[in-house]
């Protein structure tokens, strides 16, 4: 029997942990996203970047004129634009990740059968899951960096600690991408896909992006605090104000749990769909 290069490569993985679901080739899936992006998807990326910038100008500077300063901590006042900018960054990380991991994944899964093709090779479902999420993450990084540059130019960054907002945005993007992809693998029709939008918009509007949560009654505050975007908003708002302490740990854990759950269910579901 001749052993081809492809077989030799696959044989090297024998005995590794999770060899049936992971081949160490998430980077090939990522490379595919890059090739596809290079040829077409950059317009989508541009709109994803412009959206939070437009919100910042319209609300931050338009509505902000009427509002004046906001007290974010006892005795600590910031302009309204500086108040919403971190929330817009968290939201843009969320939106970019969700767009990639829901609509894009849905088409690749149900119509173009891209994953079916990938999983006919020696790759496994975890390669696909990680590779796709990594792309959403890179997009989150690009959005966050671009947004920080704008915010910096507008003079809204007052401390170098605020640059931690970039890794925070990547963490948020990863969490949303993981959950978004997992949910999408269970979705069968366009109608169900629209449910995702119904969840996303209110989460954006009501998660303390435009005003402090303290205006809500207690029960509603608790509900909002259980949603992921609120944790993202608090995380980025804190580092933007230069606050880095143990109070951030629960928010970070929240996103780590999202990532793990998303990876687990995406891998499980891709196996069910294409390898069972």
């Amino acid at each position, binding site marked *: 029997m001749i052993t*081809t*290069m492809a*077989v030799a490569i696959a044989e090297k993985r024998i005995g590794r942990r999770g060899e049936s679901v992971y081949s160490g080739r998430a980077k090939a899936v990522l490379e595919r996203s890059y090739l596809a992006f290079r*040829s077409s998807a950059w317009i989508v990326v541009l709109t994803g970047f412009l959206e939070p910038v437009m919100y910042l100008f319209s609300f931050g500077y338009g509505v902000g004129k009427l509002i004046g300063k906001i007290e974010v901590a006892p005795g600590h006042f910031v302009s309204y634009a500086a108040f919403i900018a971190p929330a817009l960054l968290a939201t843009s990380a969320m939106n970019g990740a969700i767009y990639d991991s829901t609509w894009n994944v849905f088409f690749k899964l149900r119509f*173009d*059968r891209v994953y079916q*093709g990938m999983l*006919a090779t*020696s790759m496994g479902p975890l390669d696909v899951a990680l590779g796709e999420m990594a792309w959403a993450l890179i997009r989150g990084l690009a959005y966050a960096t671009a947004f920080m540059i704008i915010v910096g130019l507008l003079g809204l960054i007052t401390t170098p600690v605020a640059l931690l907002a970039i890794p925070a945005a990547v963490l948020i993007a990863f969490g949303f991408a993981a959950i978004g992809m997992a949910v999408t693998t269970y979705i069968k029709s366009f109608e169900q896909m629209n449910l995702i939008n119904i969840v996303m918009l209110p989460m954006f509007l009501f998660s303390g992006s435009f005003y402090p949560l303290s205006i809500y009654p207690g029960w509603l505050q608790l509900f909002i605090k259980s949603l992921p975007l609120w944790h993202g908003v608090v995380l980025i708002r804190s580092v933007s104000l230069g606050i880095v302490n143990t109070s951030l740990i629960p928010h970070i854990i929240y996103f780590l749990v999202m990532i793990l759950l998303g990876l687990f269910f995406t891998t499980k579901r891709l196996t069910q769909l294409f390898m069972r």
Partner: protein
Amino acid sequence: MQNEELIVAKGLTKKYGDFTAVNEIDFAVRKGESFGFLGPNGAGKSTTMRIIAATLTRTSGQISILGKDPADRGPEIRAHLGVVPQQDNLDQALTVTDNLYIYGRYFGLPRKFVKSKIDELLEFAQLTDKRNAKVESLSGGMKRRLTIARALISEPEILMLDEPTTGLDPQARHILWDRLFRLKEQGVTLLITTHYMDEAEQLCDRLMVMDKGSIMAEDSPADLIKKFSTKEVLEVRFGSDRNSQVSDQLKTMCERIEVLPDRILMYADDAELLLESIHRASLHPLTSLVRRSSLEDVFLRLTGRSLIE
């Protein structure tokens, strides 16, 4: 080794709840041969292919592909195989070249190696002048050839083709068959499912006739015809009302008869002679056709149904 068996299945079974898609089938595929699964839609061909390709788990029975069990050697087995699925799953967002390139990368092949293979594969698939085209602009035949080229990027020992020419026009089919012959000449083992008897006759050294999850017969196309049919067939039409009236009389005149809704098939080694005797008996068919027996007749004999309904 000439008769080395690459794929061996014993009692292979796949059930979905109460439904048995593949029912205790045995078969062996030898190195370098072109092995076909012939049967109507729903016969269990694609299910069998997916089990071999390690993308579907079996319910019971044994199967080994190059001595490996897909249940615990999935990634390795998939590295041995080139898969051409029934429905194209080319990457619509990528160009022709990028489709080949990235597929090689999925197998973990080095960039340099993959790039060095692309020109050769484009030429093989007769797509060299389409190399920078987007997939969606290709015709059905081109897409199928690209899918085959893509499956070859990892230099597989076994190429699996599920209904390779379904939906293609006659010219595109012939081009595709020609490409597959070339691969066979190069020593690639071909595994083909089809519900086209002409395709099975053209391409396959050995055939497994499947129906409702079971194997009905297995042999070379010529031997199947020899075994299950006569040399020739006479097709006669008397009009839909008279077909059944005359069938009793016709039955006595030949080895075997099949009454189909629109025509009667009469099996004999010399169909011309049979036609003469029908005329002598003053039964005048509206139309008559003398032809050689085909796999369609074999299938009809084995299952009592025609292959394409």
